[in-house]
C-alpha cells in the first residue's frame, strides 16, 4: 500500500468527476482549490487507493499522473481525493538494511518504516553559495578511475555502459571498495549506500543485493527496487525517493552516502512515455524538451554543504542505446554530471575487465581531489602523460592495421608496446582492489618504457624521483 510510506493527510472530499483516462493520465473535472504538483489519491472501483500527482490545472479541470498505472480504473466509480500537499516520503535511519519498492514501501516482509520526518520527494535546490567544493579523493580500487579519472566525495559520476557490457559489475565493485584515503587517520567515517534499481531485471537486482550481502554492506544499504515488470511511471518516483532518503541521511544524520542509480535509460524512457501521454511536443528522438532540466533536478542533488559532515555522491549507470554516446540520454547526462566513465566494447571483447575506455572517460573534479596532500604530487602529470601516449598508441594501431608495422619509427614502436601493456596490465585488473600507490607504481613502471626525455608532460624533478630506470 503506497500510503504506508507516503503522506496520507487527505481531504475528506472525494470527487467522482473523472472525464477521461489516457495512458498514465487521469482527467478530473469540476474540482476546486487544487494545487499544482499536489499529491492525489485515486480510489479504484474496488476501493483500493493509488497515488498520483497533479500535472496541470486548467480552470476547473485537473490532469493527474498515476504512478502505478491506470488499469482497472473507470469513469463513473473511481474517486479522487486531493491531499493539499506535495508528494512526501517518510524518511528515517531505520530504512538502512531494508528493501523497499520504487515508491518506498517495504517489500522485504519486515515492519513498516516509522518516519522521523516527511520530506518532499522533489527536494529543493542547494543554494550554490553554501556548496562545499568536492575535493576529498575517493579510492575505488580501480586503476582506470583512481589513476586517470578520480572520483571525489560529493561528485556525480555516471558509467556509460551498453547492452552486454559489465556496467553493473563495475558499479558493484566500486560500491564495495570505495573509501576515503584519510580514513586511517580519522577512523571509519559513517557511510551508507542508497541503491535505486530503476526498471532493471530481477537477475540484475539480485546480483547487486547478493554483492552487498557478501561484502557485508547490506546493513548500511537502503534498497529501492523497481523491476522491469513493475509499473513504468513508478520509475519517475524511484530516483527521487532514493535521493530524498540520501539527502536526509547525509544532512540530518551526517552519513557519507553513495547513491547508485541504475539504469537511468529506463528512467528516461518512462519520462518519454509520460510526455507522449500528455501530447507534448517531442524533442530529440521523442524525448521531452525538458529532459535536461528533469535530469538535472536529480543529478544536482549530489554534493557537499558547508558545515555539514555528510555528503551525497552519485554513481549513475546508464546504457547507451546502440553504444551511441551522442544519444540524448548519455549526451544530456554528460552535460550535467562531472565527467563520465565509458565502457568500451572493443576492450570487453578482448577480455579486459573492467573494460573502461579511458579516452572518452573524464572526471571533472579530479584536479581538485588529487595531487600533494590528497594523493601524490605526480598524479596529474602521470595521468596526462599516460593519456597522451595511449591516445597516440590507439591512432598508431589504426595505422598499423592499414600499412603494417614496418614503417614505424622506434618511438612509434615503443608507444605501440606501451598501449598494449597499458590495456593488459593497467586497465585489465580483474577484481583486484588496488591502492592508489599501487596504481601509480604500475603507471611509472609502464612510463619507464620510454627514455626520460620523452616524458614531456611530467616535470623534471618528478621524473628524477619516480622514474624506474
Amino acid at each position: 500500500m503506497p500510503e504506508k510510506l507516503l503522506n496520507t493527510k487527505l481531504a475528506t472530499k472525494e470527487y467522482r468527476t473523472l472525464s477521461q483516462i489516457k495512458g498514465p493520465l487521469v482527467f478530473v473535472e469540476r474540482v476546486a482549490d487544487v494545487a499544482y504538483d499536489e499529491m492525489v489519491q485515486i480510489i479504484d472501483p474496488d476501493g483500493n487507493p493509488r497515488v498520483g500527482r497533479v500535472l496541470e490545472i486548467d480552470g476547473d479541470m485537473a490532469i493527474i499522473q498515476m504512478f502505478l498505472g491506470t488499469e482497472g480504473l473507470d469513469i463513473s466509480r473511481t474517486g479522487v481525493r486531493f491531499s493539499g500537499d506535495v508528494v512526501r516520503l517518510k524518511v528515517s535511519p531505520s530504512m538502512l538494511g531494508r528493501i523497499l519498492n520504487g515508491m518506498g514501501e517495504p517489500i522485504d516482509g519486515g515492519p513498516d518504516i516509522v518516519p522521523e520526518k516527511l520530506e518532499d520527494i522533489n527536494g529543493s535546490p542547494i543554494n550554490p553559495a553554501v556548496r562545499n567544493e568536492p575535493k576529498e579523493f575517493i579510492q575505488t580500487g580501480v586503476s582506470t578511475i583512481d589513476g586517470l579519472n578520480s572520483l571525489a566525495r560529493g561528485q556525480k559520476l555516471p558509467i556509460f555502459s551498453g547492452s552486454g557490457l559489465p556496467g553493473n559489475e563495475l558499479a558493484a565493485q566500486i560500491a564495495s571498495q570505495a573509501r576515503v584515503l584519510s580514513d586511517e587517520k580519522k577512523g571509519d567515517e559513517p557511510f551508507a549506500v542508497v541503491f535505486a534499481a530503476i526498471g532493471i531485471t530481477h537477475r540484475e537486482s539480485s546480483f547487486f543485493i547478493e554483492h552487498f550481502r557478501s561484502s557485508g554492506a547490506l546493513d548500511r544499504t537502503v534498497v529501492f527496487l523497481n523491476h522491469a515488470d513493475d509499473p513504468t511511471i513508478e520509475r519517475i518516483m524511484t530516483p527521487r525517493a532514493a535521493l530524498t532518503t540520501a539527502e536526509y541521511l547525509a544532512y540530518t544524520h551526517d552519513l557519507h552516502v553513495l547513491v547508485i542509480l541504475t539504469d537511468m535509460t529506463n528512467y528516461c524512457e518512462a519520462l518519454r512515455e509520460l510526455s507522449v501521454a500528455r501530447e507534448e511536443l517531442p524533442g530529440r528522438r521523442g524525448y521531452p524538451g525538458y529532459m535536461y532540466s528533469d535530469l538535472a533536478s536529480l543529478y544536482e542533488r549530489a554534493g557537499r554543504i558547508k558545515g555539514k559532515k555528510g555528503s551525497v555522491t552519485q554513481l549513475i549507470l546508464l546504457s547507451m542505446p546502440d553504444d551511441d554516446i551522442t544519444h540524448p540520454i548519455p549526451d544530456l547526462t554528460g552535460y550535467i554530471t562531472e565527467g563520465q566513465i565509458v565502457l568500451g566494447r572493443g576492450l570487453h571483447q578482448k577480455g579486459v575487465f573492467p573494460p573502461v575506455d579511458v579516452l572518452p572517460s573524464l572526471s571533472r573534479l579530479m584536479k581538485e581531489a588529487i595531487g600533494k596532500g590528497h594523493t601524490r604530487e605526480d598524479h596529474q602529470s602521470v595521468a596526462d602523460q599516460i593519456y597522451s601516449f595511449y591516445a597516440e598508441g590507439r591512432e598508431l594501431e589504426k595505422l598499423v592495421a592499414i600499412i603494417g608495422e614496418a614503417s614505424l619509427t622506434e618511438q612509434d614502436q615503443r608507444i605501440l608496446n606501451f598501449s598494449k601493456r597499458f590495456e593488459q596490465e593497467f586497465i585489465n585488473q580483474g577484481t583486484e582492489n588496488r591502492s592508489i600507490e599501487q596504481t601509480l607504481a604500475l603507471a611509472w613502471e609502464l612510463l619507464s618504457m620510454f627514455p626520460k626525455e620523452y616524458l614531456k608532460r611530467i616535470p623534471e624533478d618528478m621524473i628524477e624521483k619516480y622514474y624506474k630506470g
Partner: protein
Amino acid sequence: MQPGRKFILKVKVMEAVSKECGIINRISGPVVGVSGLEEVRLHDMVWVGDAKLVGEVIRMSGTQATIQVYEETSGLKIGEPIWGTGHPLIAHLGPGLMGQIFDGLQRPLNKLAEVEGNFLQRGVSENSLSQDKKWQFTPLVKEGDHVQAGNILGEVPETQSIMHRILVPPNLTGRIVEVKAGDLTIAEPIVIIEDDQRKINTINMEQIWPVRTPRPYKRRLDLAEPLVTGKRVIDMFFPIPKGGSAIIPGGFGTGKTVIQQSLARWSDVDVVVYVGCGERGNEMAEVLMELPELEDRVKGIPLINRTVLIANTSNMPVAAREASIYLGITIAEYYRDMGYDVLMLADSTSRWGEALREVSGRLEEIPGEEGYPAYLSSRLAEFYERAGHVDCLGNGEDKPYAGHREGSVSLVGAVSPPGGDFSDPITQSSMRITGVFWALDYELSRKRHFPAINWIKSFSLVDLSRWFGDNIEEDFPKLVQEAKSILGRENELLQVVQLIGQEALSDMEREILNISKLLREDFLQQSSIQDIDAFSSLEKSYWMLKVILEYHKKTQEALAAGIELNAITNLPVLQRIARMKEIDVEKAVPELKRLIGKIDDDLTSLISNWETENA
C-alpha cells in the same frame, strides 16, 4: 538612443504600489494563465499567487494573459491573485555588486543562505544590495554645476580594485542643487538635481534598470585592441578584441567551462561578470572558493574584488535562466558606463535557448528548427549585440566630472550543442552573429590536447594584426600566418600517411609533420592547472612561436644542404624547445631569444661540419 528616460522616473512612483490585478486560471509548470487582467503591460514583472513568486507577462489576449514564472510553481492554486509591480524585470545597480553571488533574479545567495538555510526556498525576497552598508562617497560635482546623463556625480571605493563611479542616470539633464559627501548607504540621497523642466530629482547610489533594455552610450568605437587572455591559441591564432563577442561550442568534456574559468582568471579586463546559466552547482562552488584566493596577475589583488557571479544552476527554475543572462549583461553595461573594460562570460547559452524552447512549447507556439522558437536567432542577436567598445555617455568635456571615458563589454558564450554537433540551431545562429568562433574538438580533448580549440574550424573575423604589428613585433601577423599554414599542410600530409604510410613522404614533408607536432604539443597545448603555463603573455607567446619557426627555418636549410632529418632531430636542442612552457613569463623573452641563438649555433655548426666532412 533614448530608452529609459520615462522609465526611470516612472519606476520611482510605481515600485511601492503593487496592486492586485488578476486571478490565476491555468497552471502548467512555469507557465500560468491569468484572467481579469488590469493595468498590466507586456513584459511587466508581476507577483504570482499568495507565495508572491516572481513572474513576467509574456502574452496578452483580451483580459487573459500568460505569465512565465521564474520560480517553482508547486503548490500554486487556481483562483490565487496576481499583483502588478508596474515595471519590467529590473536590475539593481550600485556599490556592493562586486564579489557578490546572485541568482538569476538578482537575489543575493549568501544572504539567502543566512536567512533560509542551505536549500533555496521560493518567494523569499531579499534586497539585492545591502541597504545598511555605508559607502564612502566623494562627490566630483558641486552645487550649481550643470550636469547631463552619464556625468560622474562622485566616486565610491567599492573594492580594492574598483572605483565605483556614480553616474547621472541616462537622459537626465539639469543643475545640481545639493550635494552630500561622506559615509552613506545606497538608499540615502547623495545629489539633488533640478532638471530642465524645473523638476527636482533625488539621486541615490542605487539605481535600477530594465534588464532587457540596452543601456545607452554616446557612440560605438572600433574594435582595435585585443583582449589578452593568456591562452596562446586564443591570443595568437583567434584573438578576441575588447568589445567583441565570441562563442565556445563543444560537446561535454571538451573543456568549455575550464576555458571560461581561465578567462575569468587571466583576462586583462577591469571587471568580470560570470554567469553560470543552467550549469553545475559544484562548478560554481569551485569558482566561489577559488576567486577569493586567486590574485590578479598585475595588481596582486584577490580576483573576487573584480568579479560578479550569477548562478542559476541546472536544478534551479528553468525560466530564470533567461533572466540570468540579461541580468549579467546589464551589470556588465553598468560598469562599462563607468569607463571600464568588462568581460561577461555566459556558461552556457544553450541552456538559455533550451529554456526558451521549453516555455515556447508550453505556450503551444509553432516550433521552428529542432523545436526551438522561430525568434531564437533574433534573441541571440539582440544579446550578442550588447557587446561593444563605446564612448561613454556624459564624457568629453573639460570638467572633473565629464572627463574622457571609454568602456567595453566583451562577451564570451559557451554553447553546448547536442552530441557535440555544430549544426544545431544555437551554434549556427550564434556563429552568424559573433565574430570569433573557438570550436572545441572532441578528438583533441580525448587526446588531452587542451585547450581543445580546433585550429582548422575556428576563426576570428576581427583583424587585429595592425595592433599586434605596432605593439608586439612587426612580423607578428606573418609569423602566425606561417604557423597556421604549416598546420594546414600537416592535415593534408596526414591524409597521405593514413593511406600509404610515412615512408612515402620526403624528408622535407616529414619535417613539416615534425614542426606541426612541435606547434601542437609545445605551443598550442597549454595547461590551465599548472601555474607556470596557465598564463602566457603576448611576448612569451610570440617568442615561443618564433623559436619553433626559427628551428623550422634552420632545419629546412640543413635538409637543403643534404643532411638527413634524423641527424637534425637527434640534436639535444629539441628537448629544450619542448620545455619552453616551463619558462617564467617574466624571464621568457631573454631566455627564448637565447634559445634562438642556440638553435642557430647548433644547426649552423651541424651544417658546416657536414659540409667539411662531405667536401
